[in-house]
């Protein structure tokens, strides 16, 4: 703990020389089991820099910043804050040195209110908390922020986008000198993302703040960053100024020789019969409120119907009703004219497949192996059983190897436990399972959330291919660009109802934006 005393706490730091790096990592190594996740990674963060960290899925970006924060202990290597070696044993030490981080996996306490969560991250937490004062203080601070969140709601009830905002607010209130952000904008609207990054950029200009940001969006990198580091399979392949780099060059650095899927063009498909019919559907949320209200959709084969909307407007409940995770209160779902109740048997019969959001939670068994997870839809089908009643592990593994290779799941080990994979690779695995075989009706919710651009292109290509083959696709997404690129028809969902519907070709962007905000 001697190091702690030598390092200087935030606030005590006098005039900082600009030549001195705010943060430096030297030779960081980290191994998870047989997998070398970080291999001798060294980089510097200049004082007041807006530094972007790029890399494909599983390249080690999250692991790198978690090692810096003391969330993981690095096997080897040192971290220097303001040129002094620091022993950061846990995130609390990191906070003391002025480091703050917004994690990709949410670190909110679900049973607590937003207010409690925000107070919790305050340092030091007062021994006795005066809730009224804390609430007033936070409400006042929230006024200065580009967005706001309801303080009295439980964090677990918030939608992904709102959770992300709370995570951001938590850090912004703490005012760290070095802020690390792990894909902070993936659940924000473009306007919110711009105003957030703009606000951070302004703070870096006056050298009050240094930012290290992990992102997949090149637009954000080009607009805001001044320096960039690129990781590929655990190795640092570039670290330096952004000037002189182009998106194409950065993409090449990230992927090496990996091939990027080209988008498939929308083919003309003759009009097919209505496949999915949702009739005045009412679905309740976890807390009993009506999340979906009298919603009706008619979806034909060979078309992609996109549903836009800010998360938390009932999209999640709608998708859960369709994927059999939630029973509707009223209304009917019909597929090819027959009633559908979301059973496994019906899904197989109608060839319905689902790509739900948060796939680790909604579409996988985290403690089972990759091979077992890949076989969840097929393990009892002919070809995957022995003597009709027994599971054929060998057939599962053969199928797993093939799918893992085709969908480039990393690491390619069928026996591996699923919850040891990175977020993007779990997504790929679910994609592999759901799109293998014949699909005639596909429900997708934020299918590209958390994916790097190579994987994103791959998913979009697959969705379009499924449509071109004549499948009906219901695409629920918070990414408007994705919807405009893929959908044939686009709708806006607000407070459980569709408040806008149009052919994508004729859609009016301003109106969509207004409807999303509830006007």
């Amino acid at each position, binding site marked *: 703990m001697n190091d702690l005393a030598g390092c200087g706490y935030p606030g005590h730091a006098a005039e900082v020389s600009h030549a001195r790096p705010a943060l430096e990592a030297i030779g960081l190594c980290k191994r998870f089991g047989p997998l070398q996740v970080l291999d001798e990674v060294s980089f510097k963060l200049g004082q007041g820099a807006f530094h972007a960290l790029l890399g494909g899925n599983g390249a080690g970006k999250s692991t790198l910043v978690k090692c810096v924060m003391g*969330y993981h202990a690095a096997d080897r290597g040192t971290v220097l804050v303001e040129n002094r070696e620091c022993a950061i044993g*846990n995130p609390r030490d990191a906070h003391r040195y002025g480091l703050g981080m917004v994690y990709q996996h949410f670190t909110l*306490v*679900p*049973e*607590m209110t937003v207010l409690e969560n925000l107070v*919790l991250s305050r340092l030091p937490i007062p*021994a006795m908390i005066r809730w009224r004062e804390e609430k007033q203080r936070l409400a006042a601070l929230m006024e200065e922020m580009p967005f706001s969140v309801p303080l009295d709601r439980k964090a677990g009830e918030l939608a992904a986008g709102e959770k992300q905002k709370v995570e951001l607010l938590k850090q912004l209130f703490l005012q760290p000198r070095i802020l690390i952000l792990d894909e902070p904008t993936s659940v924000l609207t473009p306007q919110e993302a711009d105003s957030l990054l703009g606000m951070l950029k302004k703070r870096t200009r006056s050298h009050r703040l240094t930012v290290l940001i992990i992102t997949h969006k090149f637009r954000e990198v080009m607009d805001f960053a001044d320096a960039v580091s690129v990781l590929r399979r655990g190795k640092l392949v570039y670290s330096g100024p952004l000037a002189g780099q182009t998106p194409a060059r950065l993409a090449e650095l990230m992927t090496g020789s990996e091939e990027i899927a080209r988008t498939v063009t929308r083919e003309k498909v003759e009009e097919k019969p209505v496949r999915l019919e949702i009739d005045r559907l009412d679905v309740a949320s*976890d*807390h009993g409120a009506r999340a979906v209200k009298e919603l009706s959709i008619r979806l034909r084969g060979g078309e992609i119907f996109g549903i836009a909307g800010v998360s938390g407007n009932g999209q999640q409940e709608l998708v859960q009703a369709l994927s059999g995770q939630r029973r509707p209160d009223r209304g009917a779902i019909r597929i090819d004219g027959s009633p559908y109740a979301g059973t496994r048997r019906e899904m197989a019969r109608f060839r319905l497949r689902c790509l739900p959001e948060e796939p680790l939670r909604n579409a996988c068994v985290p403690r089972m192996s990759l091979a077992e997870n890949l076989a969840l839809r097929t393990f009892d089908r002919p070809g995957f059983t022995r003597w009709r009643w027994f599971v054929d592990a060998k057939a599962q593994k053969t199928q797993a190897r093939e799918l893992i290779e085709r969908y480039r799941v990393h690491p390619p080990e069928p026996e591996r436990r699923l919850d040891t994979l990175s977020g993007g690779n779990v997504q790929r695995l679910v994609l592999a399972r759901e799109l293998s075989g014949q699909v005639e009706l596909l429900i997708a919710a934020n299918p590209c959330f958390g994916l790097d651009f190579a994987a994103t292109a791959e998913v979009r290509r697959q969705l379009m291919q499924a449509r071109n083959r004549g499948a009906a696709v219901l695409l629920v997404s918070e990414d408007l660009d994705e919807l405009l690129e893929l959908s044939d028809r686009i709708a806006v969902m607000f407070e459980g109802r569709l408040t806008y519907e149009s052919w994508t070709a004729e859609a009016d962007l301003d109106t969509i934006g207004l409807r999303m905000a509830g006007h």
Partner: protein
Amino acid sequence: MNGEALGWWGVPLAILGGAIRAGTPYLFVSLGECLTEKSGRINLGLEGNLVLGAMSAYAVSYLSGSPWLGVLAAGGTGMLLGLLHAWLCSFPKVNDIAVGIALMLFGIGVAFFFGKPYIQPAAPHLPALGFGDWSASAQVRAALEINVLFLIGLGTAPLLGWFLANTRWGLMVRTVGDSRNAAEALGFPVNRVRAAATVAGGFLAGVGGAFLSLYYPGSWNEGLSSGQGLIAVALVVFARWQPMRCLYASLLFGGAGALGPALQSVGITGGYYLFNAAPYVLTLLLMAATCSPERTLSGIPGELSVTK
């Protein structure tokens, strides 16, 4: 006789008195379990704490002559068992439920082993306050004779609720219990917080045991506890992990247990054993009525191994 004069009014009165008398052990164990579960661990061993607490309270009270020293001794042995539970659970891949069952058997075994010499002698009891002394009716006086330990429990419930909601330590306990991920990101020492909560919970359960042997039924023997420690664990679920609701639930269960004797006192003897099963039937009915497959169990700490 005055008691006869009360007639049917004697039934609710006897149930009230019984609720307080029989509810006190439930109250202490459920508060202890509530605190432990809030930190993300289930301690099924509290039945062991209860029995060992009853034995040590009785022994110390007999040997020292002071029932309050006995209460402290009961709390102390409860803390030791809690510490053992916390220590075993701090190792990776140890299941807290299995450890709890082992410790329940261990605690009961230890209590029987050391308790043999104390079955016969009479130890000084805990004092009770006569809230019914104004009444001429013996029944009223019996029902309103309230033990000091119950009053302490009555104060502990809101205090625990306040502690969990308004203090730094309380927030730490809830954070650790709800999301290990969040706790680690905040740098909270997860295992130490859980250990502290388990030890404190063990203390409360031990005190509950002291009530059994030093007040009601008020003696030490091997059949003293009839599974109150286990029912109290279910009671925490029913109380949705809120200390104040633990209080109400304990009274409800205590009252249900007093139903049989109360009815007997007014001459209804048929179905005596059926009425004695009331707490268990009540447990099942309440669980069935309050559970829903559609909605999540609100209030459940996310780190409990039953939810993962």
